[in-house]
């Protein structure tokens, strides 16, 4: 009697955990099946998961994890160990969601860095136009570009903004020094 009760409880628990996962997998699988049908009919097909499309702004990016989770779950194997597979799928979904979040953020940071580098380059050229460029400005801009290429946008921004500052100061210095001549202490001798 007790064994029956225990077995029934175990079965109920397994179903409670496994069924929602199966449902999610089926739900996610449906567009894929539709896609096959659509292929045959040669009609244009929408992407299976919205997460695959690049999000242009922050709001779509925030919505991406919810859409990405079922898509990832669909890829997870479903079978006797459905609960474990579901958990793994959820993890994978999180990872994909994180990627979906990171990509637009990177794009925004890269755009900001590109602008900072362009500003720094303009300031450097302005200083050079009055023979006031400083030694390390161009080097810093190059380092900022390298940092951006390596994905270290914070470092790149710091370097670019320092380079811009150097360019501006170099220009101001050169303009201020125009017409420099003998210092008074030499003339007074």
């Amino acid at each position, binding site marked *: 009697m007790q064994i029956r009760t225990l077995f029934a409880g175990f079965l109920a628990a397994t179903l409670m955990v496994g069924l929602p996962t199966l449902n999610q997998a089926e739900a996610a699988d449906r567009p894929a099946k539709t896609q096959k049908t659509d292929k045959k009919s040669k009609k244009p097909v929408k992407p299976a998961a919205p997460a695959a499309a690049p999000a242009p702004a922050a709001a779509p990016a925030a919505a991406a994890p919810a859409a990405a989770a079922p898509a990832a779950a669909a890829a997870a194997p479903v079978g006797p160990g459905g609960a474990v597979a579901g958990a793994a799928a959820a993890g994978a979904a999180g990872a994909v969601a994180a990627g979906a979040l990171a990509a637009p953020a990177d794009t925004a940071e890269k755009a900001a860095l590109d602008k900072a580098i362009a500003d720094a380059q303009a300031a450097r050229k302005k200083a*050079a136009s009055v023979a006031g460029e*400083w*030694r390390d400005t161009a080097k810093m801009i190059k380092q900022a570009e390298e940092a951006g290429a390596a994905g270290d946008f914070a470092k790149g921004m710091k370097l670019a903004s320092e380079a811009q500052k150097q360019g501006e100061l170099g220009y101001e*210095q050169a303009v201020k*020094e125009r017409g*420099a001549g003998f210092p008074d*202490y*030499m003339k007074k*001798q």
Partner: protein
Amino acid sequence: MNKTLAIVMAIGLALGAAGALQATPQEDQATFQNYFIKRFPNVPKDDFINGAYALDPVGRENWEAIEEFPPYETAVSNGEKMWGTPFANGKTYADCFPDGPGIAARYPHWDKEKGMVVTLTMDLNKCREANGEKPLKPETGPMAELNAYIALESRGQVRNVEIPEDDPRALAAYEKGREFYFTRRGQFNFSCVTCHGANSGNQLRSEILSPAFGHTTHWPVYRSKWGEIGGLHRRYKGCNEQVRAKAFEADGEEYRNLEFFMTFMDSGLPLNGPGARK
């Protein structure tokens, strides 16, 4: 009546101020040389060609010991060989410079035809190109070695740079060189005179800062720091970079004009190149 007097006085003051602002190169030279002669009253005028060694007796002892077996000797030998070695067309430098290698005192000079200051390295490269050879890098390597030989052959000559009065462009080049010399630049906000004017004779770390007067007489120089011989424009580059300013091109307009100004300031001093410095 009072109004007329005021106008006349104002004009007089304005003219006086303009005159004071626009000192002639000769007045500049007198101001420059007198400053250093008064700053270092124990240094004979001609001894300024020895830079910091004119001020530091211990450093001078060391330097004179080095000069017994000068580190630029190999460069001079190589330069002499270059002078005598025919180009591919059979001609030599002597065909371009018929008065021989002792020509350093003629440079830099104002070239009216070109409308620019011409340096010795420019004319040597011009000679090479006229004879089908590639120009050499002006401030280092074989060109510096050739210059070392020419400098040695020119020792003792007195250089008197001329700024032709009939060509205002020459005066403009001189004034640009003067402005460059006194312009603060770079992240450190230093000008040439910051170190070599009021601070000359002072100690900077382990070194004594040399006076500006005499700076152009002993080039090219074998610098221990370089481990080889190099030209004056190479030193200019190094100085600019030390104050964290972007350096200019050797034999470019900025350094040519600077050399023109500095050499004019040193007019009357004998040449003593090539030199040896730390």
